[in-house]
């Protein structure tokens, strides 16, 4: 049994300890809610000292262990109600069914669209970080540099939350729904120092820089894979129709393979079909790997 917390940070520390092992995104949300409640309670009862207040919290908001249990329970209920069951359940099917079954996996599709989107978001993140960082670094020696640095770090935090929402919706990785609480009421200088000593600020910036090459890679792979496969499938169908004497319009169909036409058509069709499913598999893999990467760089580093 832990001792009754006497300050808000102590309470939060106990809550964090009680939630150990839970999803980091859940921990961040739980800590945010608790801090909002505790600070509101403190603001509603001016003159009462923190220790007396926190002694009463166990009866109203709940002791850290109770709160941890409540969040764990609610998370299970919500996950059950809102989420599609994980595709791991499909493992019982044969290898062939699993390979082609990817077409019915929503995360393969959303992952594919994430790959297309990541070029745009990657450029925005990269530009923001590079511009913000160089402007902040250049002006930090002047007094005007201080608000610029604060603004820059604030923008980074917002972008991090936005990217988290995109990642959760499109890649299926649970991400925080609330930002981190930043030490409020502390002097300016202390807050700036905190921003620089907070590992998360740096890992978020790293993630955003990484998003440009990654986004370019994802976009290229997605576009190349999908257009090559669809082109092969469509081309072979058209070639077949033309071979049967059908007028397919102005298309001059040349499958461009050194094979007789009767062999080229099925080979190209099968190749295109295979490529289509492979692209979806790549998209699903990217969805998983990138989800983990985002979780580590945007969330995990905050759980000191």
């Amino acid at each position, binding site marked *: 049994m832990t001792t009754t917390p006497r300050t808000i940070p102590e309470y939060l520390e106990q809550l964090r300890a009680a939630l150990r092992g839970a999803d980091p995104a859940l921990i961040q949300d739980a800590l945010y*809610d*608790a801090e909002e409640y505790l600070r509101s309670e*403190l603001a509603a009862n001016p003159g009462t000292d923190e220790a007396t207040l926190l002694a009463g919290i166990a009866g109203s908001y*709940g002791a850290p262990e109770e709160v941890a249990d409540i969040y764990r329970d609610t998370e299970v209920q919500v996950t059950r109600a809102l989420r599609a069951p994980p595709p791991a359940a499909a493992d019982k099917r044969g290898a062939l069914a699993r390979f082609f079954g990817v077409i019915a996996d929503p995360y393969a599709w959303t992952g594919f669209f994430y790959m297309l989107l990541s070029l745009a978001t990657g450029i925005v993140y990269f530009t923001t970080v590079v511009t913000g960082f160089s402007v902040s670094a250049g002006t930090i020696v002047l007094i005007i540099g201080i608000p610029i640095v604060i603004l820059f770090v604030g923008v980074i935090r917002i972008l991090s939350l936005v990217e988290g929402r995109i990642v959760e919706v499109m890649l299926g990785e649970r991400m925080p729904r609330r930002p981190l609480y930043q030490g409020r009421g502390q002097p300016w200088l202390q807050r700036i120092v905190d921003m620089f000593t907070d590992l998360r600020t740096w890992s978020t910036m790293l993630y955003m820089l990484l998003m440009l090459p990654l986004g370019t890679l994802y976009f290229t792979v997605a576009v190349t894979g999908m257009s090559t496969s669809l082109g092969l499938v469509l081309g072979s169908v058209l070639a077949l129709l033309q071979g049967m004497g059908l007028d397919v319009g102005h298309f001059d169909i040349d499958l461009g393979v050194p094979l007789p036409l009767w062999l080229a058509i099925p080979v190209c069709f099968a190749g295109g079909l295979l490529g289509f499913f492979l692209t979806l598999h790549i998209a699903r893999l990217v969805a998983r790997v990138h989800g983990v990467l985002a979780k580590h760089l945007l969330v995990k580093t905050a759980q000191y």
Partner: protein
Amino acid sequence: MADVEPHLKKFQKELSAGTVSLVLLAVLEQSGEPVYGYQIAKRLERTGDPLLGGKQSALYPVLRNLSAAGLAESHVEPSVSGPPRRYYRITPLGSEVLAEWTRTWRTTRQSVDSVLEGQLP
């Protein structure tokens, strides 16, 4: 009576799982203006009912779910004393859903009451 306690706890927990959403939505509808988590918690505490006034930390995840489901909307506002607060307000969809939920609740309550009082048709 040591044996009754865990059963009571379990029943309360299951009962509150469904009713908390209804109650929170009703509070949002009646308040007319956006309210924040702590205000709602204190309002429910005054009812004195252990089911609603229980552990107030249970309200926050439910509020978040209501807002994720589109039944409520929220925004953050800085406050003079204390931290910035997240204010919740009911959406038109939320009002419609609340009307349906209220009807369901009334029907269920009547049926349950009539069974408990032995007035089975």
